[in-house]
């Protein structure tokens, strides 16, 4: 190879390309780009070993802005391309960037199988609950009643939960973040990177043009503290402006209910402690969206299992790259003509 040595410590700027970023001003993607660049700096990623793969959509432009290797592919299929990259070279550090239409509509099948196989890469789903690049049609995560050019009277469909989908598909790492949470996001991405296997991260991302404010019901400053819960492994599930609200498991309904510490008999001991290795718990956290329960962010689930690459390495272990083609052509029955 070549003798260029990377500087000992790269900065976020070193991961930015000279290409003009073409997202709409105020788009949530800018914040995520910043968080990813900071993450790569923090983990001391090497640009030449890092690959960003994307499909189609606003989010899919992401690789053009990363000073790493990048492959902008076709709609919905980024998981399949990324799998191929890893089959060729399992040592590469691969990140897939996708959106709600790309990952859950046209590419739902590929995401399902990526997660099931547990290919070792990071999958970032920018969920803005709308089709941006095609000018504002409803997406599979749009809420029922969403008015859009293709649903002028409101969507009649039930939205899909990205994190529940991921857990259902067998994901071993499921996290959720919000574009505006610059404090938490790099931490989540670092954990995602450290996880061996497919790390699925849903990021609520505001589309300022076609779906502005769609997450305000839990991200607006005035309500965020009471409508969100940031979960941490081993910590009680507490939230609220005064951090005095907690989630208690109701043994009859097998569902969470909100209690207030010191009110109506609510005490800290009753608050459920987060265990990120518990899939049932993760599923309950993922499905909290109805009014009265906060929206969970943080690492909902992390429970490593052997990655696809590990399985493949086992299969290829006995393989010698120099297997003799002549013996391949001559195995079985042959005969000689004199």
């Amino acid at each position, binding site marked *: *190879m*070549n003798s*260029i040595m*990377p500087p000992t410590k790269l900065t976020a700027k070193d991961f930015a*390309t000279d*290409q003009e970023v073409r997202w709409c001003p105020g788009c949530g993607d800018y914040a995520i780009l910043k968080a990813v660049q900071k993450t790569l700096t923090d983990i001391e990623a*090497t*640009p*030449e*070993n890092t*690959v*960003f*793969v994307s499909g189609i959509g606003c989010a899919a432009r992401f*690789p*053009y802005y*990363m*000073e*790493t*290797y*990048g*492959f*902008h*592919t*076709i709609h919905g*299929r980024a*998981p*399949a*391309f990324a*799998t*191929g*990259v*890893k*089959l*060729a*070279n399992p*040592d*590469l550090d691969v990140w897939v960037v996708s959106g709600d239409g790309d990952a859950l509509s046209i590419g739902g*099948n*590929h995401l*399902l*199988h990526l997660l099931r196989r547990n290919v070792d890469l990071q999958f970032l789903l920018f969920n803005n609950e709308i089709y941006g690049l095609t000018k504002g049609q409803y997406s599979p995560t749009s809420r029922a009643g969403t008015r859009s050019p293709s649903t002028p009277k409101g969507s009649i469909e039930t939205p899909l939960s990205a994190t529940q989908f991921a857990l259902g598909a067998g994901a071993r790492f499921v996290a959720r973040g919000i574009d505006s949470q610059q404090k938490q996001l790099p931490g989540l991405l670092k954990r995602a990177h450290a996880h061996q296997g497919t790390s699925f991260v849903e990021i609520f991302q505001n589309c300022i043009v076609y779906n502005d404010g769609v997450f305000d019901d839990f991200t607006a400053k005035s309500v965020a503290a009471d409508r969100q819960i940031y979960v941490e492994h081993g910590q009680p599930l507490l939230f609220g402006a005064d951090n005095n609200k907690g989630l208690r498991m109701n043994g009859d309904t097998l569902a969470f209910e909100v209690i207030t510490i010191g009110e109506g008999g609510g005490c800290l001991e009753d608050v459920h402690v987060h265990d990120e290795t518990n899939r049932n718990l993760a599923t309950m956290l993922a499905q909290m969206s109805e009014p009265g329960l906060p929206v969970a962010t943080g690492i909902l689930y992390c429970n490593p299992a052997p990655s696809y690459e590990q399985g*493949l390495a086992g299969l*290829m272990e*006995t*393989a010698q*790259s120099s*297997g*003799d*083609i*002549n013996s*391949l*052509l*001559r195995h*079985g*029955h*042959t*005969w*000689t*003509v*004199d």
Partner: protein
Amino acid sequence: MAANTAIQKNLTKTTTRQHLDSAVVRFAGDSGDGMQITGGQFTLATALSGKNLATFPDFPAEIRAPAGTTFGVSSFQINFGTKTIKTSGDEFDVLVAMNPAALRVEIKDLKIGGIVIVDIGAFSKRNLRKAGFETDPLESTFLGRYRVIKLDISQLTLDAVADLGLSKKEALRCKNFWTLGYVFWMFGQKRQTTQDWLHSKFATREDIANANIAALNAGHALAETSEVLDGFQGYAIAKAHNIEPGLYRTVTGGEALSWGLAAGARLADLKMVFCSYPITPASPILHALSNMSEHNVVTFQAEDEIAAACAAIGASYGGSLGVTSSSGPGVALKGEAIGLAISTELPLVIVNTQRAGPSTGLPTKTEQSDLFQSVFGRNGDAPLVVIAARSPADCFDAAIECVRIATKYMTPVILLSDGYIGNAAEPWKIPDFDDLDAFPVTFRTDPEGFHPFARDPQTLARTWAVPGTPGLEHRIGGIEKHYDSGHISYDPDNHQKMTDTRANKILGVANDIPEQTVESGPNHGKLAVLGWGSTFGPISRAVSNLQARGVEVSHIHLRHIWPLPRNLGGLLGGFDRLMIPEMNTGQLLTLIRSEYLIDAQGLNKVSGQPFKIHELEEAIEARLEDVK
């Protein structure tokens, strides 16, 4: 058994076998009767006895179609002989019909005076009715033109394995080996390879192996000791004497293609990543390669056809040789991804084992109707290279050629095989891998002056820089790239330039492939027959038969479908008439007419069956009549 053997020896006839140059045998039965295994074992024994051969497995799409039905008939045909064999044969000398349905479906192609062996044990009223016989054909004049050997194979098999402790169901499964033993005797073939095969196949079920061998021996013994037909003392076919010396084996197209891809990847010094989704009749390639990890082959059974293509392209982007394989319906799904490989100029081999279409069509029947799909079937101006294999063994060379062009020109290459050559077997003189020319790939490592679409001025191929290489970090995608930087560009003039460059790169491949030669006959004259792909065998035989009768006709056979060989237009212009036989409704015909403005005429057949030699001979003669 020992006692029986002694009796057989006493009864062994002094045979004077009738010598034949070649013979065609067709085994036909229910799809659960094991006819494909029977044919495969007959093929192996024939090959090892030093004869030329060609086979044609012909089976239904259903794994176990309802028993006794005409649509559930599974057949295996072999043509073998002393002379050079080019097809599986127009008509059979011997037909084995394991039930009335097989007799009903296959009898039309038995030669007049040919031998038909029927298992009367399967000729129940119910089976006769299922096959559409009002009356028993064995009792009527239905078989009047043929020599009929009636055997209760079911009962004879049960008798042969009676002492071996099998259930009746298991015992009846040995019927096909009983029959094989019988037919082995008819042609003086040895049983040893089949016995060895049974021992290894049923290594863990010795009782099954022994029962099948007992049935095989019993069938052979009965043929040897009984009066098969009045005066019939068996056939003898001498070893082929016109075979080039060397080491031989039989190969199917699927095997040769798989090994050719592996050999090509080795010659390119690349790991192969083979990504596929199961589909008839392409799956044998996936199966073969899945067992070749020691040859640096990674296989990936994707979740669908699209993912298979995309993963293969991802692998090429990552620095391996990405290969995807399917049949027409699957290739249709891969279309958008292939367009991306064209736009990003990545090497990719797409294998299409064609089947009869449109849509699901006839999955197990052969056709050549994906030529348009291959050359034209994508959105935008999306040129790539198309190569067609002509025979099972030729799949090896064709696959290597695809890898060479894909890596040298940074382009997708479609390799066309079809259901016929994919499943058919022929003897193959095994090449020495060390004699093949290597074409090792060199990845770009020098950052000086690098951009991802920097081109080789000769081939116009872009540089191949793979992730993991310091200093060459870059982004590529399906959006148009600027010619001089590789960055996204919406500039109209640049799009014109890039479109022209992509087209010229592919057209330039014509300078890197052999000039078209004439397969047989003069290189100008009254009539040329132009073929491609698996019609090679029948066209070649038909033309040589006519030439032997003094007819002036030439045979030209294309391997390179796109780009066409650089001298093809001139060569075709030297003939008064041009006839293009194809198993489609005229796809190469349209291409040739549009490329060269030649008034070529088609001969088209889409019955799911390969051309018969006599069909071609008659059509060629009729065409020559027109000229007069």
